[in-house]
């Protein structure tokens, strides 16, 4: 029952050792954030090896997209990282715009930036809540969901949807912002700043929180780069890599913001970085709302979208990390010939087994939380 002794009876004279326990964490488990299954080999409570089994909600989005026309795909991108639909929208439409060489109006780019940053705040709220919940701090979840609710209200006001926004179009935006929306966004920024202090008060200096996250899942910058980590986990290891700065898309090149970097590369650093990203996002939103230019929100795009034959890869910074879209057009069909998304959650999840080794079962939960995965995106 508890032992998995498949091997023959041990040789006499062998040193003492305990049997390893194989524990299937998931696919139904409260803190694997969806249907992730982690096969843990445990020595006592210490993790000897962890193997992720994914694909439980593989829906074949990439294949599906090859059979939808270019405009229809926007709403499929919503359903990959369903807690950060707007950045997926952004990445996809920009990839197609790049392929078609379409000029997007400046106002549209500004609004896209606002949407993407609001999305980052919403996604980080969800991350913070669930991560804290995994470590047992239940109250933070409710607090951060209160703010996420606020963001979702803003999104609802903008596009009518609260989760899967379908909020961007190739060449611009479907809608201009509602009257007064920008005011409400900056009002939200003011509220959010005060609420951040509440989170910090509950967690940042909490002995238990620090004890649970400090020096857990330490990974060096070189290793993180080699493992293909992206987003906050990579920056937590001190690698300055943010698509918004390095390859500016939308209107990021027009704003001032900082890229927070960690020093130790542990779970606590990743937590601090995400908290700092809240502040940077607020900073970007403020600048964007203040400098919001007038003009159209839709560029000149043909009625039938049929990019010339060719392929391109375009990346944007989603809340989880670098989300890249590799799109191939054959130039004849109205469907993409190949649609590939580089899912940041997938690449980050790959590092889980490396991060888990040598830690305890309870830390696995913290580590799954810290890499911030969305299984809809991992499995696609």
């Amino acid at each position, binding site marked *: 029952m508890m032992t998995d002794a498949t091997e023959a009876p041990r040789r*006499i004279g062998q040193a003492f050792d305990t049997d390893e326990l194989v524990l299937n964490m998931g696919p139904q488990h409260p803190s694997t954030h969806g249907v992730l299954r982690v096969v843990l080999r445990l020595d006592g409570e210490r993790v000897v090896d962890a193997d992720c089994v994914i694909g439980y909600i593989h829906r074949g989005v990439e294949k599906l997209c090859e059979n939808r026309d270019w405009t229809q795909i926007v709403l499929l991108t919503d359903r990959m990282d369903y807690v950060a639909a707007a950045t997926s929208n952004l990445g996809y439409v920009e990839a197609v715009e790049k392929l078609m060489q379409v000029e997007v109006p400046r106002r549209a780019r500004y609004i896209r930036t606002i949407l993407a940053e609001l999305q980052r705040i919403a996604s980080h709220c969800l991350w913070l809540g669930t991560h804290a919940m995994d470590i047992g701090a239940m109250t933070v979840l409710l607090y951060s969901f209160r703010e996420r609710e606020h963001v979702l209200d803003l999104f609802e006001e903008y596009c009518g949807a609260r989760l899967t926004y379908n909020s961007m179009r190739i060449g611009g935006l479907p809608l201009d912002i509602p009257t007064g929306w920008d005011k409400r966004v900056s009002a939200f920024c003011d509220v959010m700043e005060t609420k951040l202090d509440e989170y910090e008060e509950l967690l940042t200096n909490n002995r238990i929180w620090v004890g649970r996250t400090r020096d857990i899942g330490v990974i060096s910058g070189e290793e993180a780069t080699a493992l293909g980590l992206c987003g906050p986990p990579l920056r937590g290891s001190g690698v300055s890599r943010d698509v918004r700065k390095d390859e500016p898309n939308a209107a990021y090149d027009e704003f001032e913001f900082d890229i927070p970097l960690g020093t130790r590369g542990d779970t606590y650093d990743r937590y601090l970085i995400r908290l700092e990203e809240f502040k940077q996002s607020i900073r970007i939103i403020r600048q964007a709302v203040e400098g919001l230019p007038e003009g159209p929100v839709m560029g000149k795009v043909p009625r039938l979208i049929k990019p010339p034959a060719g392929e391109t890869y375009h990346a944007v910074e989603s809340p989880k990390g670098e989300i890249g879209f590799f799109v191939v057009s054959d130039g004849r069909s109205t469907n993409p010939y190949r649609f590939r998304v580089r899912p940041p959650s997938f690449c980050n999840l790959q590092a889980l087994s490396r991060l888990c080794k040598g830690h305890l079962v309870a830390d696995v939960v913290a580590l799954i939380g810290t890499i911030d995965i969305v299984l809809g995106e991992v499995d696609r």
Partner: protein
Amino acid sequence: MLEITPLHYSVLSAALFMIGVIGVLVRRNIIIIFMSIELILNAVNINLVALSDQLQNLIGQVFVVFVIAVAAAEAAVGLGIIIAFYRNKETVNIDEMSLMRW
């Protein structure tokens, strides 16, 4: 029969002792043998407490405290040995514990 004398307790103690002895002799699972030994110790304790009550002398109860201390020590070391043995040979059968060293 209605008056309970120390004899009654002695008989109870003897019977429990006997059950323990049978357990030690019959069972092959070393953990159950240990438990049988605990039964034997308890049988002795019953006797000690009963006589202490009868004689109005606390020495019996003092001995019970010592017996419990010894039982605790025995359980700790004995079970440690069992765990160590089990790790190496994957058995708790006393018949297979025939080696003085491994």
